[in-house]
Protein backbone atom coordinates (compact mmCIF):
# COMPACT_ATOMS: atom_id res chain seq x y z
CA UNK A 1 0.00 0.00 0.00
CA UNK A 2 1.39 3.35 -0.91
CA UNK A 3 1.48 6.17 1.64
CA UNK A 4 -0.81 9.14 1.18
CA UNK A 5 0.73 11.32 3.80
CA UNK A 6 -0.83 13.12 6.71
CA UNK A 7 -4.32 14.62 6.56
CA UNK A 8 -4.51 18.41 6.74
CA UNK A 9 -5.37 18.19 10.45
CA UNK A 10 -2.44 15.85 11.12
CA UNK A 11 -0.18 18.07 9.04
CA UNK A 12 -1.25 21.13 11.05
CA UNK A 13 -0.59 19.14 14.21
CA UNK A 14 3.01 18.54 13.07
CA UNK A 15 3.43 22.27 12.46
CA UNK A 16 2.10 23.01 15.94
CA UNK A 17 4.58 20.51 17.31
CA UNK A 18 7.61 22.14 15.72
CA UNK A 19 6.32 25.59 16.78
CA UNK A 20 6.15 24.52 20.43
CA UNK A 21 6.96 27.53 22.58
CA UNK A 22 6.26 30.04 19.82
CA UNK A 23 3.62 32.63 20.71
CA UNK A 24 3.53 35.08 17.80
CA UNK A 25 3.51 33.28 14.45
CA UNK A 26 3.11 34.79 11.01
CA UNK A 27 1.28 32.71 8.42
CA UNK A 28 2.14 33.09 4.75
CA UNK A 29 -0.01 32.89 1.65
CA UNK A 30 -1.42 29.52 0.57
CA UNK A 31 -1.37 26.43 2.80
CA UNK A 32 -0.06 28.20 5.95
CA UNK A 33 -2.90 30.72 5.99
CA UNK A 34 -5.31 27.78 6.52
CA UNK A 35 -3.63 26.76 9.79
CA UNK A 36 -6.01 28.77 12.05
CA UNK A 37 -8.80 26.38 10.95
CA UNK A 38 -6.92 23.67 12.84
CA UNK A 39 -4.89 25.50 15.47
CA UNK A 40 -6.86 28.56 16.57
CA UNK A 41 -8.14 26.85 19.73
CA UNK A 42 -4.67 26.11 21.04
CA UNK A 43 -3.87 28.49 23.88
CA UNK A 44 -0.90 30.79 23.68
CA UNK A 45 -0.70 31.21 19.90
CA UNK A 46 -1.48 34.47 18.09
CA UNK A 47 -1.29 34.45 14.31
CA UNK A 48 0.09 37.47 12.47
CA UNK A 49 -0.67 38.65 8.96
CA UNK A 50 1.49 41.31 7.33
CA UNK A 51 -1.58 43.48 6.67
CA UNK A 52 -1.47 44.50 10.34
CA UNK A 53 -3.74 41.92 12.00
CA UNK A 54 -2.10 40.24 14.98
CA UNK A 55 -4.57 37.50 15.87
CA UNK A 56 -6.13 36.03 12.73
CA UNK A 57 -8.64 33.33 13.67
CA UNK A 58 -10.44 30.76 11.54
CA UNK A 59 -12.77 31.69 8.71
CA UNK A 60 -15.95 33.19 10.22
CA UNK A 61 -19.36 31.53 9.78
CA UNK A 62 -21.26 32.29 6.60
CA UNK A 63 -22.64 35.82 6.62
CA UNK A 64 -20.36 37.05 9.42
CA UNK A 65 -17.31 37.95 7.35
CA UNK A 66 -15.95 41.50 7.71
CA UNK A 67 -14.51 42.85 4.46
CA UNK A 68 -11.52 44.46 6.19
CA UNK A 69 -10.51 41.27 8.02
CA UNK A 70 -8.54 39.10 5.60
CA UNK A 71 -5.47 36.88 5.71
CA UNK A 72 -2.40 36.69 3.46
CA UNK A 73 -4.46 34.78 0.89
CA UNK A 74 -7.14 37.53 1.00
CA UNK A 75 -9.55 35.05 2.63
CA UNK A 76 -11.91 36.26 5.38
CA UNK A 77 -10.77 35.68 8.95
CA UNK A 78 -12.18 36.12 12.43
CA UNK A 79 -10.16 37.61 15.28
CA UNK A 80 -8.53 35.62 18.07
CA UNK A 81 -8.92 36.68 21.69
CA UNK A 82 -6.09 39.13 22.36
CA UNK A 83 -5.97 40.33 18.76
CA UNK A 84 -4.65 43.78 17.88
CA UNK A 85 -4.61 45.81 14.69
CA UNK A 86 -1.36 47.69 14.09
CA UNK A 87 -0.46 50.23 11.40
CA UNK A 88 0.99 48.62 8.30
CA UNK A 89 4.51 49.98 8.71
CA UNK A 90 4.48 48.78 12.33
CA UNK A 91 3.44 45.35 11.05
CA UNK A 92 6.76 45.23 9.21
CA UNK A 93 8.56 46.47 12.32
CA UNK A 94 7.07 43.36 13.96
CA UNK A 95 8.40 41.27 11.08
CA UNK A 96 11.90 42.66 10.59
CA UNK A 97 12.41 43.76 14.18
CA UNK A 98 12.65 40.22 15.51
CA UNK A 99 9.30 40.23 17.29
CA UNK A 100 7.91 37.16 15.56
CA UNK A 101 8.78 33.84 17.13
CA UNK A 102 8.14 32.12 13.83
CA UNK A 103 6.72 32.34 10.34
CA UNK A 104 5.18 29.50 8.37
CA UNK A 105 5.70 30.01 4.64
CA UNK A 106 4.98 28.13 1.48
CA UNK A 107 7.82 27.44 -0.94
CA UNK A 108 8.68 26.44 -4.48
CA UNK A 109 12.03 25.01 -3.39
CA UNK A 110 14.21 24.71 -0.29
CA UNK A 111 17.87 23.75 -0.48
CA UNK A 112 19.75 21.46 1.88
CA UNK A 113 21.44 24.54 3.37
CA UNK A 114 18.14 26.28 4.06
CA UNK A 115 18.05 28.60 1.08
CA UNK A 116 14.43 29.54 0.38
CA UNK A 117 12.73 30.12 -2.99
CA UNK A 118 9.10 31.16 -2.78
CA UNK A 119 8.52 34.30 -4.82
CA UNK A 120 9.41 33.71 -8.46
CA UNK A 121 10.13 30.99 -10.97
CA UNK A 122 12.98 30.77 -13.50
CA UNK A 123 12.35 32.97 -16.51
CA UNK A 124 9.14 34.47 -15.11
CA UNK A 125 8.30 37.82 -16.69
CA UNK A 126 6.47 39.00 -13.60
CA UNK A 127 6.49 37.84 -10.00
CA UNK A 128 4.96 38.92 -6.74
CA UNK A 129 7.32 39.12 -3.79
CA UNK A 130 4.94 40.51 -1.16
CA UNK A 131 6.29 40.16 2.36
CA UNK A 132 8.22 36.93 1.70
CA UNK A 133 11.71 38.43 1.85
CA UNK A 134 10.96 40.47 4.97
CA UNK A 135 9.56 37.42 6.75
CA UNK A 136 12.46 35.18 5.74
CA UNK A 137 15.04 37.55 7.23
CA UNK A 138 12.98 38.72 10.20
CA UNK A 139 11.28 35.83 12.00
CA UNK A 140 13.27 33.91 14.59
CA UNK A 141 12.16 30.59 13.15
CA UNK A 142 11.28 30.01 9.49
CA UNK A 143 9.14 26.92 8.99
CA UNK A 144 8.26 25.90 5.43
CA UNK A 145 4.94 24.15 4.88
CA UNK A 146 4.78 22.73 1.37
CA UNK A 147 3.94 19.61 -0.56
CA UNK A 148 6.92 17.29 -0.72
CA UNK A 149 7.04 17.31 -4.52
CA UNK A 150 5.56 19.23 -7.42
CA UNK A 151 2.45 17.79 -9.07
CA UNK A 152 4.67 16.08 -11.65
CA UNK A 153 6.61 14.37 -8.87
CA UNK A 154 9.79 16.43 -9.14
CA UNK A 155 11.36 17.13 -5.73
CA UNK A 156 11.04 20.54 -4.07
CA UNK A 157 13.79 19.79 -1.55
CA UNK A 158 17.01 20.13 -3.53
CA UNK A 159 20.77 20.41 -3.09
CA UNK A 160 20.89 23.84 -4.74
CA UNK A 161 18.06 26.11 -5.87
CA UNK A 162 17.07 26.51 -9.52
CA UNK A 163 14.47 29.08 -8.50
CA UNK A 164 15.27 32.71 -7.57
CA UNK A 165 16.38 33.14 -3.96
CA UNK A 166 14.09 34.68 -1.33
CA UNK A 167 16.74 34.68 1.41
CA UNK A 168 19.86 32.58 1.99
CA UNK A 169 20.15 29.95 4.74
CA UNK A 170 16.99 31.10 6.49
CA UNK A 171 14.87 27.92 6.72
CA UNK A 172 14.93 26.06 10.05
CA UNK A 173 12.33 23.39 9.37
CA UNK A 174 10.36 21.86 6.49
CA UNK A 175 7.07 20.10 7.16
CA UNK A 176 5.55 18.37 4.15
CA UNK A 177 2.57 16.02 4.03
CA UNK A 178 5.10 13.18 4.29
CA UNK A 179 7.83 14.29 6.69
CA UNK A 180 9.02 16.78 9.26
CA UNK A 181 12.59 17.74 8.46
CA UNK A 182 15.03 19.78 10.54
CA UNK A 183 17.87 21.81 9.02
CA UNK A 184 21.15 21.06 10.76
CA UNK A 185 24.58 22.42 9.91
CA UNK A 186 25.42 19.01 8.48
CA UNK A 187 22.29 18.77 6.36
CA UNK A 188 18.68 17.61 6.56
CA UNK A 189 17.48 15.44 9.43
CA UNK A 190 14.11 13.68 9.26
CA UNK A 191 12.39 13.79 12.64
CA UNK A 192 9.11 12.16 11.65
CA UNK A 193 7.53 10.47 8.66
CA UNK A 194 3.90 9.83 7.73
CA UNK A 195 2.65 6.31 8.43
CA UNK A 196 3.27 3.76 5.72
CA UNK A 197 6.19 5.61 4.20
CA UNK A 198 9.60 3.99 3.86
CA UNK A 199 12.92 5.83 4.07
CA UNK A 200 13.57 4.77 0.49
CA UNK A 201 10.28 6.23 -0.69
CA UNK A 202 11.00 9.51 1.08
CA UNK A 203 14.52 9.62 -0.38
CA UNK A 204 13.13 9.04 -3.87
CA UNK A 205 10.98 12.17 -3.49
CA UNK A 206 13.86 14.28 -2.18
CA UNK A 207 16.78 15.62 -4.24
CA UNK A 208 19.08 16.15 -1.26
CA UNK A 209 20.68 13.75 1.23
CA UNK A 210 18.49 12.88 4.23
CA UNK A 211 19.57 11.67 7.63
CA UNK A 212 17.14 10.17 10.10
CA UNK A 213 16.95 11.10 13.75
CA UNK A 214 17.96 8.27 16.09
CA UNK A 215 14.47 7.96 17.48
CA UNK A 216 13.00 7.73 14.00
CA UNK A 217 11.10 4.50 13.46
CA UNK A 218 10.49 3.75 9.82
CA UNK A 219 7.26 1.90 9.24
CA UNK A 220 7.65 -0.61 6.46
CA UNK A 221 5.12 -0.92 3.69
CA UNK A 222 2.26 -3.15 4.72
Amino acid sequence: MSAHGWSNAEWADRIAGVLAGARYVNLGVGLPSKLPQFLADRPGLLFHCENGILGTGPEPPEGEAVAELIDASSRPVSLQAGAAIVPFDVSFSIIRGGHLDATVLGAYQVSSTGDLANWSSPGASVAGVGGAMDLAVGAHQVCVMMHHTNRDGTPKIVDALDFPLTAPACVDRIVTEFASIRMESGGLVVDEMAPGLTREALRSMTAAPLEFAHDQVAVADR
Partner: protein
Amino acid sequence: MEIHRPTDDRGPVASVLKPVVTAEEAVLSILPGAVVLVGGWGGVGVPGELISALAAADTSSLTVVSNNCGTGHPRDIGLLFAAGKVRKAVTSFPTHPAAEPFRRALAEGGLDLELVPQGTLVERIRCGGSGLGGFFTPTSAGTPLGEGKEERVLDGRLQVFEPALRGDVALIHAWEGDEYGNLRFRYAAGAFNSTMATAADFVIAEVESLSSTPLPPDQVDTAGIFVDALVLRSGS
Protein backbone atom coordinates in the same frame (compact mmCIF):
# COMPACT_ATOMS: atom_id res chain seq x y z
CA MET B 1 -13.59 65.72 27.80
CA GLU B 2 -14.37 69.29 26.79
CA ILE B 3 -13.09 70.47 23.41
CA HIS B 4 -12.32 74.17 23.08
CA ARG B 5 -13.82 75.79 19.99
CA PRO B 6 -12.74 79.19 18.67
CA THR B 7 -15.24 81.98 19.31
CA ASP B 8 -13.56 84.44 16.94
CA ASP B 9 -15.61 84.10 13.76
CA ARG B 10 -13.28 86.08 11.49
CA GLY B 11 -11.70 82.76 10.59
CA PRO B 12 -8.11 81.93 9.74
CA VAL B 13 -6.55 82.91 6.42
CA ALA B 14 -5.74 79.33 5.54
CA SER B 15 -8.24 76.97 7.06
CA VAL B 16 -7.52 73.72 8.81
CA LEU B 17 -10.87 72.66 7.46
CA LYS B 18 -10.29 70.54 4.38
CA PRO B 19 -12.36 70.88 1.22
CA VAL B 20 -14.82 68.13 0.41
CA VAL B 21 -14.72 67.72 -3.35
CA THR B 22 -15.88 65.23 -5.96
CA ALA B 23 -13.54 62.52 -7.14
CA GLU B 24 -13.45 64.18 -10.58
CA GLU B 25 -12.40 67.52 -9.06
CA ALA B 26 -9.83 65.86 -6.83
CA VAL B 27 -7.91 64.17 -9.63
CA LEU B 28 -7.66 67.37 -11.71
CA SER B 29 -4.49 68.05 -9.71
CA ILE B 30 -2.79 64.97 -11.18
CA LEU B 31 -0.65 66.10 -14.09
CA PRO B 32 0.81 63.87 -16.82
CA GLY B 33 3.95 62.14 -15.58
CA ALA B 34 2.96 62.44 -11.93
CA VAL B 35 3.96 59.92 -9.26
CA VAL B 36 0.73 58.68 -7.67
CA LEU B 37 0.66 56.66 -4.45
CA VAL B 38 -2.41 54.43 -4.27
CA GLY B 39 -3.39 52.86 -0.93
CA GLY B 40 -4.85 49.48 -0.08
CA TRP B 41 -3.75 45.86 0.28
CA GLY B 42 -5.25 42.74 -1.26
CA GLY B 43 -8.35 44.56 -2.44
CA VAL B 44 -9.09 46.12 0.96
CA GLY B 45 -8.73 49.84 1.67
CA VAL B 46 -8.65 50.77 -2.01
CA PRO B 47 -9.79 54.31 -3.01
CA GLY B 48 -12.02 53.01 -5.79
CA GLU B 49 -13.87 56.20 -6.74
CA LEU B 50 -10.64 58.20 -7.00
CA ILE B 51 -9.12 55.49 -9.18
CA SER B 52 -12.21 55.43 -11.41
CA ALA B 53 -12.04 59.20 -11.79
CA LEU B 54 -8.32 59.11 -12.55
CA ALA B 55 -8.83 56.41 -15.18
CA ALA B 56 -11.28 58.75 -16.93
CA ALA B 57 -9.20 61.91 -16.47
CA ASP B 58 -7.11 63.66 -19.11
CA THR B 59 -3.70 62.52 -17.88
CA SER B 60 -1.10 59.94 -18.83
CA SER B 61 2.40 58.53 -18.27
CA LEU B 62 1.77 58.10 -14.58
CA THR B 63 4.07 56.31 -12.18
CA VAL B 64 1.82 54.42 -9.77
CA VAL B 65 2.99 53.08 -6.43
CA SER B 66 0.65 50.37 -5.20
CA ASN B 67 0.99 47.07 -3.36
CA ASN B 68 -1.16 45.28 -5.95
CA CYS B 69 -1.78 45.89 -9.63
CA GLY B 70 -5.37 44.67 -9.65
CA THR B 71 -7.24 42.12 -7.55
CA GLY B 72 -10.40 41.67 -9.57
CA HIS B 73 -12.45 44.39 -7.90
CA PRO B 74 -14.43 46.44 -10.42
CA ARG B 75 -12.93 49.75 -9.27
CA ASP B 76 -9.30 49.09 -8.50
CA ILE B 77 -5.97 50.03 -10.00
CA GLY B 78 -6.53 47.64 -12.88
CA LEU B 79 -8.65 50.44 -14.38
CA LEU B 80 -5.52 52.60 -14.76
CA PHE B 81 -3.69 49.88 -16.69
CA ALA B 82 -6.76 49.18 -18.82
CA ALA B 83 -7.00 52.90 -19.64
CA GLY B 84 -3.32 53.08 -20.63
CA LYS B 85 -2.54 55.71 -18.01
CA VAL B 86 0.50 54.02 -16.47
CA ARG B 87 4.11 54.24 -17.64
CA LYS B 88 5.68 52.70 -14.55
CA ALA B 89 4.42 50.56 -11.68
CA VAL B 90 6.26 50.37 -8.35
CA THR B 91 4.68 47.39 -6.66
CA SER B 92 5.11 44.43 -4.36
CA PHE B 93 2.50 41.86 -5.32
CA PRO B 94 1.23 42.38 -8.89
CA THR B 95 0.58 38.71 -9.63
CA HIS B 96 -3.05 38.36 -8.59
CA PRO B 97 -4.84 36.09 -11.09
CA ALA B 98 -7.30 38.90 -11.81
CA ALA B 99 -4.57 41.45 -12.69
CA GLU B 100 -5.24 40.90 -16.39
CA PRO B 101 -5.09 44.57 -17.53
CA PHE B 102 -1.70 44.89 -15.81
CA ARG B 103 -0.33 41.75 -17.46
CA ARG B 104 -1.62 42.89 -20.84
CA ALA B 105 0.02 46.30 -20.47
CA LEU B 106 3.29 44.62 -19.48
CA ALA B 107 3.16 42.23 -22.43
CA GLU B 108 2.40 45.04 -24.89
CA GLY B 109 5.49 46.95 -23.76
CA GLY B 110 5.84 50.54 -22.64
CA LEU B 111 5.24 49.67 -18.99
CA ASP B 112 8.19 49.67 -16.59
CA LEU B 113 7.97 47.45 -13.54
CA GLU B 114 9.85 48.00 -10.26
CA LEU B 115 9.24 45.07 -7.92
CA VAL B 116 9.85 45.95 -4.26
CA PRO B 117 9.53 43.72 -1.19
CA GLN B 118 6.43 44.76 0.74
CA GLY B 119 8.14 45.84 3.95
CA THR B 120 10.75 47.72 1.95
CA LEU B 121 8.05 49.47 -0.06
CA VAL B 122 6.17 50.74 2.98
CA GLU B 123 9.38 51.75 4.75
CA ARG B 124 10.61 53.67 1.68
CA ILE B 125 7.31 55.56 1.76
CA ARG B 126 7.56 56.05 5.52
CA CYS B 127 11.02 57.57 5.04
CA GLY B 128 9.70 59.77 2.25
CA GLY B 129 7.06 61.14 4.59
CA SER B 130 9.44 61.50 7.51
CA GLY B 131 12.23 63.60 6.07
CA LEU B 132 14.64 60.67 5.82
CA GLY B 133 16.80 59.78 2.84
CA GLY B 134 16.43 56.03 3.10
CA PHE B 135 17.54 53.05 5.14
CA PHE B 136 19.51 49.80 5.18
CA THR B 137 17.66 46.49 5.41
CA PRO B 138 18.66 42.81 5.20
CA THR B 139 15.53 42.23 3.10
CA SER B 140 16.51 41.28 -0.48
CA ALA B 141 20.27 41.22 0.27
CA GLY B 142 21.90 38.49 -1.79
CA THR B 143 18.79 37.96 -3.93
CA PRO B 144 17.92 39.05 -7.48
CA LEU B 145 15.98 41.99 -6.02
CA GLY B 146 19.09 43.15 -4.16
CA GLU B 147 21.27 43.32 -7.27
CA GLY B 148 22.81 46.72 -7.94
CA LYS B 149 21.97 48.09 -4.51
CA GLU B 150 24.58 49.60 -2.19
CA GLU B 151 25.59 46.97 0.39
CA ARG B 152 26.92 47.22 3.93
CA VAL B 153 27.44 44.71 6.71
CA LEU B 154 25.61 46.09 9.75
CA ASP B 155 25.05 44.18 12.99
CA GLY B 156 26.89 41.32 11.30
CA ARG B 157 24.31 41.07 8.52
CA LEU B 158 24.53 41.95 4.86
CA GLN B 159 22.14 44.83 4.25
CA VAL B 160 21.15 46.88 1.21
CA PHE B 161 20.34 50.57 0.94
CA GLU B 162 16.81 51.54 -0.01
CA PRO B 163 16.03 55.15 -0.93
CA ALA B 164 13.02 57.08 0.33
CA LEU B 165 9.97 57.25 -1.93
CA ARG B 166 7.47 60.11 -2.24
CA GLY B 167 4.55 60.86 -4.49
CA ASP B 168 3.25 64.01 -6.11
CA VAL B 169 -0.21 62.85 -5.10
CA ALA B 170 -1.54 60.16 -2.77
CA LEU B 171 -4.95 58.57 -3.24
CA ILE B 172 -5.95 56.96 0.02
CA HIS B 173 -9.04 55.39 1.56
CA ALA B 174 -10.44 55.67 5.09
CA TRP B 175 -13.45 54.36 6.94
CA GLU B 176 -14.40 57.70 8.44
CA GLY B 177 -13.21 61.28 8.24
CA ASP B 178 -14.11 64.67 9.67
CA GLU B 179 -13.96 68.18 8.21
CA TYR B 180 -10.47 68.68 9.66
CA GLY B 181 -9.18 65.82 7.53
CA ASN B 182 -8.74 63.50 10.49
CA LEU B 183 -9.16 59.88 9.47
CA ARG B 184 -9.98 56.51 10.95
CA PHE B 185 -9.29 53.18 9.30
CA ARG B 186 -11.15 49.92 9.75
CA TYR B 187 -9.14 46.80 10.66
CA ALA B 188 -6.64 45.95 7.90
CA ALA B 189 -7.94 48.63 5.52
CA GLY B 190 -5.36 51.10 6.80
CA ALA B 191 -2.65 49.16 5.00
CA PHE B 192 -0.46 51.55 2.98
CA ASN B 193 -3.08 54.29 3.44
CA SER B 194 -1.75 55.65 6.74
CA THR B 195 1.84 55.66 5.48
CA MET B 196 1.06 57.10 2.05
CA ALA B 197 -0.85 59.93 3.74
CA THR B 198 2.49 61.26 5.00
CA ALA B 199 4.45 61.02 1.77
CA ALA B 200 2.88 63.06 -1.01
CA ASP B 201 2.63 66.74 -1.87
CA PHE B 202 -1.15 66.47 -2.23
CA VAL B 203 -3.13 63.86 -0.31
CA ILE B 204 -6.72 63.03 -1.21
CA ALA B 205 -8.70 60.83 1.16
CA GLU B 206 -11.77 58.94 -0.04
CA VAL B 207 -13.90 58.30 3.03
CA GLU B 208 -16.81 55.91 3.53
CA SER B 209 -18.47 58.42 5.80
CA LEU B 210 -17.91 62.01 6.88
CA SER B 211 -18.58 62.71 10.53
CA SER B 212 -20.56 65.89 11.23
CA THR B 213 -18.66 66.26 14.50
CA PRO B 214 -14.88 66.09 14.98
CA LEU B 215 -13.60 62.55 15.48
CA PRO B 216 -12.57 61.80 19.06
CA PRO B 217 -8.92 62.93 19.13
CA ASP B 218 -7.63 59.71 20.64
CA GLN B 219 -9.34 57.68 17.94
CA VAL B 220 -7.74 59.48 15.00
CA ASP B 221 -5.42 57.17 13.03
CA THR B 222 -4.18 59.74 10.49
CA ALA B 223 -4.23 63.38 11.56
CA GLY B 224 -5.65 66.04 9.27
CA ILE B 225 -2.23 67.68 9.03
CA PHE B 226 -1.43 65.09 6.36
CA VAL B 227 -4.65 65.43 4.36
CA ASP B 228 -5.40 68.08 1.69
CA ALA B 229 -8.83 67.13 0.37
CA LEU B 230 -11.68 64.76 1.14
CA VAL B 231 -13.93 62.81 -1.20
CA LEU B 232 -17.07 61.27 0.28
CA ARG B 233 -17.66 57.90 -1.31
CA SER B 234 -21.04 57.93 -3.02
CA GLY B 235 -21.47 54.22 -2.71
CA SER B 236 -22.72 53.99 -6.27
